[in-house]
């Protein structure tokens, strides 16, 4: 979810009316935005945008455009999308680009002299689009240039890494693309996108001047836009043609909203694209959709009628033609998020305001219930609380050291864990196969809490099980420990015995060897169909590893799926 800065004055100019910061806050539902922070001195408003399918809203122009449209009950389409004549300028795509970075789109913006607000916002939009929408420039990256110095046509082609030299932004001297990849900060940051390419993408004009080395860096001569510049070239390159065109459409609309005249570019491909071999950009990609009025009414639970729906959608920026039964809608060209009739239904609800829909209380009768696992776990919890045990509630992720090393089970059959591949911290690298380490952690950290310590937890654990479809099983376990100067096997056995008595689970203890427990003071709990686990006095080496000075005994068993 991107968060952007907008400035109140700039915003008001773009909306076309005066607005206080609280007005801005009131309008946020139209753009699924939330005001995070307001600075009264600078007029800066930090806005978080929720909708990841609406990159057109990740800039002040887009937010203002959407709100303007609702307030003015509609907006005229941008004329440059319907320009029929061939473009005056073009970009020629060279052979071989399809294997590296196949698509480019561009337009020229004339007559708007770059203001400080405009430049700041252009840079912010460029970054947000390339970063969040363009997946850190991998699928989409954007460049801005001083158009007056460029001799069209521009070529989008490939060069050898050391074939050409130009001065990149941020540097004084000329460098080859290879040098940029190894030295320039942007080359280091984004170079991996071009990993494995023998030849690298480059934009240059008919005089041989380099525009940029996409998606890495612009040239300093042509690609450093400054305050007051009036003629701009906007170019977008990338790997997905729809996304490349959408990003350009958004940029073109933003500049048009600031007063620029937008002129199209023809992009000539030596290969076929989904929009043909010559693509004139900006390009409206949206086709009209016929949607039944009934479907919208049913979804929203209100008989709004064709007229109301038509008005709402027009207000929200759609081009609309309606009949009594259906409505034909076309999304504006800066959006490309239509997938289903419900998307349109939501826009009707947003335009009319959610508060205009009165809630209907659910009427249907259903029987509520807890799962058998939860019922069993609640019974056990109640019993253990009654026995005097304090319930503990732990995180399920823990460290290998806690779960294995300190339990003295390294390199044994008990040391089988579900581990995380992308470890963030060694403290949380594994899922617990057993709850006892979580209880011992509490004991280790609480020597000053007054004794005795009777602790328990009922909860989920993860058992590695390569037979299972997902390689593991989630099980429900109950674990309890007693830590006090007289803690021993028979004391904890009494508690287990009582628990099993009240659960009516006949059980047996089978003498076994378990590295976590003292030899001869450990048993395997067997309870046909209900439970399986261990009980014993913890081995002094286990207690030492946890730095526990108090004799501690405990038990843990897995609750097998209870029968109804």
């Amino acid at each position, binding site marked *: 979810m991107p968060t952007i800065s907008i400035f109140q004055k700039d915003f008001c100019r773009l909306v076309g009316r005066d607005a206080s910061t609280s007005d801005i806050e009131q309008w946020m539902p139209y753009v*699924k935005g939330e005001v995070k922070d307001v600075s009264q001195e600078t007029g800066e408003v930090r806005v978080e945008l929720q909708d990841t399918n609406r990159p057109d809203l990740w800039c002040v122009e887009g937010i203002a455009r959407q709100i303007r449209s609702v307030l003015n009950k509609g907006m005229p389409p941008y004329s440059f999308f319907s320009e029929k004549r061939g473009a005056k300028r073009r970009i020629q795509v060279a052979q071989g680009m399809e294997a590296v970075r196949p698509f480019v789109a561009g337009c020229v913006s004339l007559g708007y002299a770059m203001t400080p607000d405009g430049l700041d916002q252009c840079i912010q939009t460029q970054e947000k689009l390339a970063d969040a929408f363009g997946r850190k420039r991998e699928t989409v990256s954007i460049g801005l240039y001083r158009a007056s110095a460029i001799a069209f046509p521009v070529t989008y082609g490939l060069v050898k890494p050391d074939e050409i030299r130009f001065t990149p932004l941020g540097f004084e001297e000329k460098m080859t693309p290879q040098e940029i990849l190894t030295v320039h900060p942007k080359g280091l940051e984004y170079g991996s996108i071009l990993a494995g390419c023998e030849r690298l993408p480059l934009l240059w004009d008919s005089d041989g001047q380099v525009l940029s080395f996409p998606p890495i860096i612009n040239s300093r001569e042509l690609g450093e836009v400054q305050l007051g510049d009036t003629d701009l070239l906007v170019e977008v390159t990338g790997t997905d043609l729809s996304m490349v065109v959408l990003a350009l459409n958004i940029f073109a609309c933003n500049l048009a909203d600031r007063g620029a005249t937008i002129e199209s570019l023809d992009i000539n491909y030596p290969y076929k694209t989904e929009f043909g071999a010559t693509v004139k950009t900006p390009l409206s990609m949206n086709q009209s959709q016929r949607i039944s009025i009934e479907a919208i009414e049913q979804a929203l639970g209100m008989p709004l009628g064709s007229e109301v729906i038509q008005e709402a959608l027009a207000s929200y920026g759609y081009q609309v033609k309606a009949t009594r039964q259906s409505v034909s809608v076309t999304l504006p060209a800066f959006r490309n998020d239509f997938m289903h009739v*419900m998307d349109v239904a939501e826009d009707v*609800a947003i335009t009319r305001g959610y508060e205009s829909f009165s*809630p209907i209380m659910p009427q249907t009768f259903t029987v509520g219930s807890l799962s058998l696992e939860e019922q069993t776990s609640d019974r056990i919890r109640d019993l253990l609380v009654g026995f005097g045990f304090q*319930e503990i509630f732990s995180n399920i992720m823990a460290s290998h050291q806690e779960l294995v090393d300190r339990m003295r089970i390294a390199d044994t059959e008990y040391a089988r864990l579900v581990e995380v591949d992308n470890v963030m911290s060694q403290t949380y690298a594994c899922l617990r196969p057993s709850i006892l380490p979580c209880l011992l952690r509490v004991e280790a950290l609480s020597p000053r809490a007054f004794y005795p310590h009777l602790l328990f937890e009922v909860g989920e654990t993860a058992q590695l099980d390569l037979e299972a479809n997902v390689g593991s099983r989630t099980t429900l376990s109950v674990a309890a420990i007693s830590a006090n100067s007289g803690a021993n096997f028979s004391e904890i056995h009494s508690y287990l015995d009582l628990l099993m008595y009240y659960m009516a689970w006949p059980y047996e203890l089978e003498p076994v060897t378990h590295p976590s427990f003292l030899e001869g003071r450990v048993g395997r709990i067997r309870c046909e169909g209900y439970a399986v686990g261990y009980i014993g006095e913890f081995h002094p080496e286990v207690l030492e590893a946890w730095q526990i000075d108090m004799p501690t005994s405990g038990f843990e068993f897995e609750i097998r799926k209870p029968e109804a």
Partner: protein
Amino acid sequence: MNSPNNTDSLHPLEIQVLRELGKYPQPLSDLQLANHTELAPSQVSMAVGWLLTKQLVSLSSETTTTYVSLTSVGAQYHQPNSSPLEWILQTVKSAAHDGSSPTVKDLQGTGKFQPSELSRAIGILKKEGVLQMGAGGVLEITSKDSDTMRDLRSLLNQVQEGARPLDSFASDHQTLLRQYAVKRGNTQEPFRIDDHTERTYVLTDEGRNLLPHLREGAAQEISQLTPELLKDGSWRHVSFRKYSINLRPPRLAVGRRHSYREFLDTVKYKLTSMGFQEMRGELIETEFWDMDALFMPQFHPARAIHDVYFVKNPKMAKKIQEPFLSQVGQVHRDGGTSGSKGWKYEYDPERAKRLVLRSQGTAVSARTLAQNPPVPGKFFSIARCFRYDNVDATHATDFFQVEGIVLGSDINFRTLLGLLQLFATEMAQAKEIRFFPAYFPFTEPSVELHVRHPKLGWMELGGAGLFRSEVTIPLGVTVPVIAWGLGLDRMAMIALGIQDIRDLFTSDLEAVRNMRRHF
């Protein structure tokens, strides 16, 4: 009576001490109090300690005196002819009477005294010329008397009557006492010299004022009713001491549910009372059920908001259940039969098998949808979820999500709002609510619910929406479905007085024992 010192709550020992102090105008010492009341010194000091705390008596003077007293060795010496000097002379005398002469070795052989006690005594007697060493080491007595023996006998007799101040003795006797006093490394001595601080006490004004109100017969009061008193009926003849009931009682170690879990228990009972049925799922999920089935495209930035933990071994599930894999893949590619255009990309069925730690409770809902659930149906889960986040005060490594679904042919946007309104009143006792448009990858329309909690003010309580057809149709569900989630952790934290989300799962027993719900 407004005074904090109600005479009823005074201990019988306190009453005895107060009375005793009241009899005399001058201060009394511990010792005097013990003598007058015939209480043990420890009882006196206990009672005086309580009375000082209650400010009924005050300390009058404090003087430190050096006292000489008899040790258990001294008590033995005090018996007739039992000091080493006396015994040696007596033994040698009676042997001579029998015509024999004992050696030093013979004396040691009796084991009556320690060798060091004997050799010191023999040394003194020889020095005084009372004893002589003859041929063959035999001991012989002269006609002289031992001054030391005489002085020691006199001191033993004096001190035996009771501890006496050291400075009440003549200075040469003081020297002798010091020589024969217990020292570090030599405890076999007849005298002990130690400092004793004597404190004297007087009644305070408040203590004096209480005197007329003191109970009679307090000494016969008992504090604890015993089985014996009940069995023989003798409780009828005793009176029970009244307690200071405002003193803090001793702490107990008890069994108790964990406060956060108790909070979640109330949530689950609330939901079942509203007709919701509990669902459960696995901690380890496939990307398919965690994300693909929820129409989150494999490529889209929307997926980045759910950064997940991947499983190390095995990395992949064996298979994804059909027909769901094909149907979900189709809906991603071109919308399939859902009425959607789909995401238009090449869906990767292998990636769907990638194993992750469940990142959202909605995965449990997706699995329920695929199991031909009853219609109408209401379901919930309180599911442990994992996010690839740095752990800090607002991010836990694993946490609970409370979510669920409602299926029904009558479900639409307004019944969705109705359900949220119900949650607002049931879960947050909120009367004022607001709905905001929201975005979730798997619902459309999507709503955020803000409520005015009576204690917390305006807060976001949860999010919800109608599941997209792209979610329901491939899983075989044809009726509309509400998907909802409640964000209750903030409410829980404030109710439990916790600032740091990690403290919900703290391993500090003291903190767990102290945790409680404030509302």
